[in-house]
């Protein structure tokens, strides 16, 4: 066989060879929780925690290898159509839009697929566009919208059938701060508060979760490692608290001396202002704060201020997941 033919043969073999090595990953493992009607439930976790997989499973796009779940009282395995009729879903990517159709035409198409009654379609489209503040863009091609506006259109589509349950995967992603804030308020006050919808909201943004969620669950490596109200979750890590100290002459020796004290878990040092260093000292027991002050003075530092700091939800997440 000629070299050219050998090359062709290799090319075909390479083409036919399995190109993707499929490594099996258990993305969601033994997760169990329930959400009350009208509750805004936050699902938090670092990248790859399994949040999107869980949302995709609940909206029936993924099929669980084991176990099941109920959404609005319907089993995702046995009654997937009823589940789909009960939910509005915003996934993490824009999908299924037709760029050369206007926002209104796109929404009309989906309203028809969702089975929104004919007499109600125009009204629902108007309402949802108003809710996401896209009324002015209603007759523009979808492809002309900015990514933030496309995100809003994703939300409008999810709200079209007026579903009792909303699954929102990173819904404020790509929104500007004001739009994100307005949207959070709309979901909290209007959709959950007035309309009594049940919302599952996944996010990386801890401030967002802390601001609006009634309860949160923290996912890590496919498992839920903490669940409760934001303050309950923060309480879980309260055994470790932060002491924030502003001081002068924070030499490496001084920091090392504090680190050696019993009860100190970690120290993060930042340059606060010229000559002033801020130390965030994570401790097991806040009763060691006089000892810290004494050590600073003994090693030649000068203490400006020292205060106790409550852990934020973000810190709770970092501590609970062990992520740095």
């Amino acid at each position, binding site marked *: 066989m000629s070299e050219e033919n050998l090359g062709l043969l290799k090319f075909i073999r390479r*083409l036919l060879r399995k*190109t*993707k090595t*499929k490594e099996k990953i258990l*993305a969601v493992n033994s997760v169990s929780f329930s959400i009350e009607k009208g509750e805004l439930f936050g699902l938090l976790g670092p990248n790859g925690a399994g949040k999107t*997989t869980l949302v*995709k499973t609940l*909206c*029936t*796009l*993924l*099929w669980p*290898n084991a176990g099941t779940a109920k959404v609005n009282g319907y089993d995702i395995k046995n009654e997937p*159509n009823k589940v*789909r*009729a009960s*939910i509005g*879903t915003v*996934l993490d*990517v824009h*999908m*299924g839009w*037709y760029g*050369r*159709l206007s926002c209104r*035409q796109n929404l*009309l*198409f*989906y309203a*028809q*697929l*969702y*089975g929104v009654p004919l007499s109600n379609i125009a009204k629902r489209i108007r309402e949802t566009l108003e809710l996401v503040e896209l009324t002015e863009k209603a007759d523009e091609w979808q492809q002309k919208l900015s990514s933030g506006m496309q995100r809003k259109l994703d939300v409008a589509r999810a709200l079209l059938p007026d579903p009792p349950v909303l699954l929102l995967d990173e819904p404020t992603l790509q929104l500007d701060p004001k739009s994100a804030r307005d949207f959070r308020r709309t979901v909290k006050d209007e959709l959950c508060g007035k309309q009594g919808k049940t919302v599952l909201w996944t996010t990386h943004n801890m401030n967002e979760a802390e601001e609006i969620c009634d309860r949160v669950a923290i996912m890590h490596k496919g498992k839920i490692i903490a669940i409760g109200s934001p303050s309950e979750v923060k309480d879980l890590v309260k055994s470790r608290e932060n002491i924030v100290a502003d001081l002068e002459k924070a030499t490496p020796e001084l920091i090392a001396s504090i680190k050696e004290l019993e009860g100190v878990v970690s120290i993060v040092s930042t340059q606060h202002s010229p000559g002033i260093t801020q130390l965030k000292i994570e401790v097991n027991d806040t009763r060691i704060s006089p000892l810290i002050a004494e050590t600073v003075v003994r090693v030649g530092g000068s203490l400006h201020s020292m205060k106790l700091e409550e852990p934020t939800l973000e810190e709770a997440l970092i501590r609970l997941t062990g992520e740095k």
Partner: protein
Amino acid sequence: MTQIFSSIYKIYSFFRRDVVNVSSYKLNFIFSILSMFIFSFTMGTLGAITQPAQAQYMQAYGNMNAATFLIIGFMLNQFLGQSQFAPQGIANPGNLERILLTPCSIPVFILGTMSWGYFWSSLNLVVFIFVGAMVFGMNLFTVDWLTFITILLIGVIAMWGLGIISAAIQMVTKQWNPVNWFLSTFSFLVSGVFFSPEALLTVDATGLLYRLAWCLPHTYVYYMARLAFVGKSLMDMLFPLLTLVTMAAVFFAIGWFIFKLCLRRCQLEGSLGWV
């Protein structure tokens, strides 16, 4: 009954969406219609030029003229191609994931996705027949329309089966589509788009290509549709008809089964949205 109306309404929604989308490309739309006329004229001309060479094979087709033979072949090829390739559109990851989030059933989704394509292919069919009749002596008075439409519908079901198998494979492998490649390439050569399968025996003495031709549903559709154009009824072609019906039933059942299997596999491994 409500369910049926609801399904028809949803299929109409897909159709309407595609009409709006296609009509936004106005120039392309106009030129595509122009292309239909040009292609039908090209096929008719090719048939007229090759009439002496094709004449010996035309006896099996009631001595129809070669221009009519070619026009029917090419227009059916495009119609069947639509049926074969349309299911690929449903395996489009973004499309599929998003539609599966709505309460729209998979059959409605498939039919809806294909509805515009069929409208367009039917329009193509009408243009070809119009040009054939007006310019190339296609005799429309002898056509058994009921037989022609029945053959077309059975052919479409067979093609759906093959197309769905192909789409399902692509959904899982996320790459090259061997089924559609084989069918579109070989059917063009052997099934009788441009010349009767019997003509293959002049270049392939082993008869391998000729036998391969009669393993493909395309060949039966072209053959029987042409016979319908010279007035043959379904009863006149029972054997090829039964063969085509069997192929359609088998391919469709296998296609549906494989599609469900592949969809479930993608749902299990989470690869539905992958490209």
